[in-house]
């Protein structure tokens, strides 16, 4: 296949089609509406289902229903719309059916704005819907990676009967980059032994998230966590840049990660031994590689487009053995490489205190600059 210039949102939509997407339900919201627009043209031509629901609540519950049949199904939205979907997401998780949700994140909280942001990390990775449920969260940083992860997301969701989310910020959704599309996969639906796909000549199956008996619910929670153990063992993905001899290690996902790459290159030109770890799966989180890097790095610098959400996962991996610093832009502001380069240079000359709270230190610096 040859490289074509793809816009992130449209690339995601086409990649989903090629991965065998049978049904899409969604509701428009900037900056992800191109996914919906693209699929509204493409899906009917292939005889597949596209439906613009009356709201995000409608859309996620249609996803829930279709997922119960074993169909490859997805929705997409942006931050405020994804918040509306959280109840449905929890039901999907409780019913143990596979579904894919794309969140093209924008500035928040609240209505916020439509600029790129990463403020929904905690919602995607740690929280969101009610109850205990693990979920897989993938964080592409480029159009090609978004295509590759879109295809992977359906496989992971089905393999583990689990929600898989793609979180990207508005800039990955809006940018164009050369990328290669995978071949069109056969849309043949798999025969799942749990799917409610017609009980002709077999016993009926029941899918539900209701366990009135607390002991049965507890068993369900145990089952979900056992399955999560497998995900953690098998599905961690990340990208490493200049880490071989790095004494300062930047950790950043998505756009914050790729902006950091520019800063790392500039710092390397100045002779600073700095590298970058870019988690591709933020859930499961690459704790092990961070643990290994802690033996090598004298300082970590977490860079995010939020106020320090993944920061807590990095701190959990590092466990206080070396200092962790933080730099973030938030509210829809994308950092420029020179801001991150300044942080690298500061860390390189003034040791970071292991006792200082990295978020508070960052906030003090940011508000001092503004004042």
């Amino acid at each position, binding site marked *: 296949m040859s490289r074509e210039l793809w816009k992130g949102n449209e690339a995601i939509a086409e990649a989903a089609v090629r991965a065998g997407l049978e049904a899409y339900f969604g509701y428009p919201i*900037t900056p992800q509406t191109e996914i919906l627009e693209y699929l509204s043209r493409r899906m009917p031509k292939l005889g597949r289902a596209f439906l613009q629901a009356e709201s995000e609540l409608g859309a996620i519950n249609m996803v829930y229903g279709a997922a119960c049949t074993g169909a490859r199904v997805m929705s997409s939205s942006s931050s405020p719309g994804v918040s509306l979907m959280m109840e449905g997401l929890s039901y999907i998780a409780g019913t143990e059916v596979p579904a894919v949700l794309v969140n093209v994140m924008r500035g928040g909280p609240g209505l916020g704005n439509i600029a790129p942001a990463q403020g929904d990390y905690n919602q995607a990775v740690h929280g969101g819907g009610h109850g205990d449920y693990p979920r897989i969260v993938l964080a592409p940083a480029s159009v090609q990676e978004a295509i590759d992860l879109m295809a992977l997301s359906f496989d992971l969701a089905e393999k583990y009967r689990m929600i898989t989310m793609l979180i990207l910020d508005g800039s990955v959704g809006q940018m164009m980059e*050369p990328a290669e599309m995978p071949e069109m996969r056969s849309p043949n639906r798999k025969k799942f032994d749990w799917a409610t796909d017609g009980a002709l000549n077999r016993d009926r199956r029941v899918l539900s998230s209701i366990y009135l008996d607390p002991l049965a619910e507890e068993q369900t929670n145990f089952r979900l966590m056992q399955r999560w153990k497998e995900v953690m063992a098998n599905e961690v993905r990340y990208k490493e840049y200049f880490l071989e001899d790095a004494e300062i290690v930047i950790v950043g996902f998505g756009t914050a990660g790729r902006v950091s790459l520019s800063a790392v290159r500039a710092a390397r030109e100045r002779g600073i031994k700095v590298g970058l770890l870019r988690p591709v799966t933020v859930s499961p989180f690459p704790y092990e590689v961070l643990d290994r890097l802690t033996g090598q790095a004298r300082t970590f610098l977490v860079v995010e487009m939020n106020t320090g959400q993944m920061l807590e996962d990095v701190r959990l991996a590092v466990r206080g053995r070396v200092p962790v610093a933080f730099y973030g832009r938030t509210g829809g502001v994308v950092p420029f490489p020179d801001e991150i380069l300044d942080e690298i240079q500061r860390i390189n000359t003034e040791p970071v205190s292991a006792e200082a709270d990295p978020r508070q230190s960052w906030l003090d610096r940011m508000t001092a600059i503004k004042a």
Partner: protein
Amino acid sequence: MQQEIIIAGFGGQGVLFGGQVLAYAAMDTGMEVTWIPSYGPEMRGGTANCTVVISDREIGSPLVKNPPLAIALNLPSFDKYESLLATGGTLIVNQSMVDRVAKRVDIQSIFVPCNEIAEEIGDKRLLNMVAVGALLTALPEIGLKDVEKALENHLPAKHQHLLPKNFTALRRGLEHAQKMPA
């Protein structure tokens, strides 16, 4: 090798397509490229811009604070990017839409009457191609032939009949810029 370009102007001046043409040309010559638009609500009737990064390796930041290259198709863009351009950079200015001379002497500002040239060719919408042509004087990684080929390869069939005029616009812009004293 890395080149960074910002193209800015009013919505409707072909800012985004001008950047896409460069992105297609870069891709077709085997380079990495990112094209990213400003997509805020200000786009409706207001200013628009896009950033194009061309490189021979994986591209980090798709946004650039101080670009070495820029095209300013109107006065607000001239005001903004003249101050933001990296030292030693080149700024293509649409002379048809500005009423002042350059302030900075540490960058090269090339004034091109894009609207007038486009109207001479017979289609005022070609002003973006005139500016892109002029930019090529400062972008050795991409030749006029590369941009022409990119248009040929990627312009939708219904617009293919516009190719000759687009080629003329690119060439006229390039020639005008080459004639300017350095």
